[in-house]
């Protein structure tokens, strides 16, 4: 995205979130910054427990009861989401920001047919009559490229395959014309063969309908194929951020490099050399025990003395490419 005068669709500024577990307080993220432009697909990548999903739930304000946003601002279309009342948020959820969840199998209510689940929400939110809502459901299902729509509408969730269920979840998320779709690992529960189909569908719809997507995943390959921009998250910090092609071809942060090396590759022919599959030593820190200085330093192969004491500053490496690493100083 080139520099525009318009404010971004979503702007997360200086956000700090903490969880209280028993007597301990753990910071999920401190002073987090990210933004999403209109019509952009942004990949948020990181290991489990790094705070990716917490960020998503902060945006739609569905955090668990034991969490608290300590500081910062989340603005959507120029309005501060953190200042909204629960009733106002309810109107925003679904119709302005909606979510596609990880496991479609359990994200649909088992006792209602597809039509019943989708139509009811449309009726309530958009004030449509039953037949109009029904028509809209059919249109949404056609949009997500489902075949045999009459049958699908009358089906119960368990009668459909995982891929079909995820398409229905996407149709549902789009049904109220949300401007931002947060997809929280939308493909981790479906077959590998369906994964790419689902993501391509999301990409095409994005172009067609014109919404933005925040794609949360731990799969860098997926991001490379689908996203415009990528943000790499480690222990609650966005350590590198930039256009997907730049970050993939020219990663700056040691963590991003390590992540890219740990994607398995298959040698094309017998006898051809295949680079050994790299792993990142150690485990991601938990939120109660984040290392001093750069959070990644205990696992970093390029660690300097300074890394264990002073947290690195976010620096611009290239146009729109940011990284937080002392190696850049």
């Amino acid at each position, binding site marked *: 995205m080139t520099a525009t005068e318009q404010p971004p669709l979503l702007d997360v500024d200086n956000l700090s979130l903490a969880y209280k577990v028993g007597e301990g307080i753990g910071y999920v993220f401190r002073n987090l910054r990210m933004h999403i432009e209109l019509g952009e697909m942004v990949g948020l990548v990181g290991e489990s427990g790094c705070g990716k999903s917490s960020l998503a739930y902060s945006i*739609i304000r569905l955090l668990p009861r034991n969490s608290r946003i300590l500081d910062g601002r989340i603005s959507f279309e120029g309005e501060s989401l953190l200042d909204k009342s629960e009733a106002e948020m309810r109107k925003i*959820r*679904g119709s302005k920001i*909606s979510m596609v969840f990880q*496991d479609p199998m359990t994200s*649909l*209510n088992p*006792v209602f047919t597809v039509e019943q689940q989708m139509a009811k929400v449309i009726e309530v939110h958009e004030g449509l009559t039953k037949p109009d809502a029904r028509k809209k459901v059919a249109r949404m299902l056609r949009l997500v490229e489902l075949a045999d729509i009459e049958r699908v509408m009358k089906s119960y969730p368990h009668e459909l395959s995982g891929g079909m269920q995820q398409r229905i979840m996407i149709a549902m998320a789009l049904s109220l014309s949300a401007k931002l779709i947060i997809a929280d690992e939308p493909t981790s529960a479906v077959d590998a063969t369906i994964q790419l189909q689902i993501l391509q569908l999301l990409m095409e719809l994005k172009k067609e309908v014109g919404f933005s997507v925040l794609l949360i995943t731990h799969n860098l390959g997926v991001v490379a194929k689908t996203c415009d921009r990528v943000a790499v998250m480690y222990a609650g910090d966005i350590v590198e951020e930039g256009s997907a092609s730049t970050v993939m071809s020219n990663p700056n942060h040691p963590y991003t490099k390590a992540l890219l090396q740990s994607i398995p590759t298959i040698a094309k022919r017998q006898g051809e050399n295949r680079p050994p599959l790299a792993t990142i030593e150690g485990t991601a820190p938990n939120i109660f025990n984040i290392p001093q200085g750069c959070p990644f330093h205990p696992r970093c192969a390029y660690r300097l003395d300074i890394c264990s004491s002073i947290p690195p500053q976010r620096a611009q490496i290239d146009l729109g490419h940011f990284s937080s690493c002392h190696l850049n100083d």
Partner: protein
Amino acid sequence: MIGDFFEMTVTTIIRRDWIGKMREQLKSKVLLCGVAILVFWIIVAIFAYLIAPYPQQGLNGIPNPAQALRPPSWQHLFGTTELGLDLFSRVIFGTRIALFTAAVVTGASLLIGYPLGVIAGYVGGSLDEGLMRITDVFLAFPTILMAILIVAAIHPSLWSMILALSVTRWPQYVRLSRAQALSLRTRNFVLAAKGMGEGRFEIIRKHIAINAIPPVLILATTDFGFIILADAGLSFLGLGVTPPTADWGLTIAQSIAYFPVYWWYATFPGIALFTLVTAFALIGDVLTERLDPKLAKMTGVWSKL
């Protein structure tokens, strides 16, 4: 070798399939059996006036000492009581009391307990905490003992028995539907509904309450049988239905003095009670299996077949 193995596997599969089919058939027969008995008794209750040869004697009955303690005959199919009342008519009219009591008690406990439990489980907090402590008080006493205390405190009658049993049964429904709501509220489709901007009331109604129905329904079915037994038990102790109303438990209590010489007096109401309670037990068991297979595997009779 391979042939043997193949044959063995095939026979095992066939055999297993055969047993499975038998079990499946048996189960549907059992359900049918339970429903048939129940329907039979419901018809008897509805058409009591038409079926009973002496409706007046069944309803309340003026003593007729001349006919006292007659053995079963064509005139009195089940014999007569010590007051000379037709036992057949008494048993038929007793059905009404048994089914009526069970329906009112189960209905009232369900109507009070189920919504309270679902709301408490979903909303949580002090509402939930407060309600749970109240149910604890009720659950601390055995149902029958509690009911006896309540009836004794008021005075024995059909309605005080119904009140006492309802008061003791509703906490069960609160507990069960609360537990269901607790597990349902963390389910993904509830989160997805929140993500779609659905309100609290809609979520409770559409996602929590509906999905909590199956186990509550099972509890209600088995409770039906239990209430009929409790009704008979309380009446037997003189804490329920009062004479001259016809009630199975009461009739059995009155027959005790004449057993075993006048065997028919205790036997026929006993058989009636047994069949009706059994019908509910059978229906409840098959329902458990159908609606909640996981639970049935742990508790059902069928797993042991």
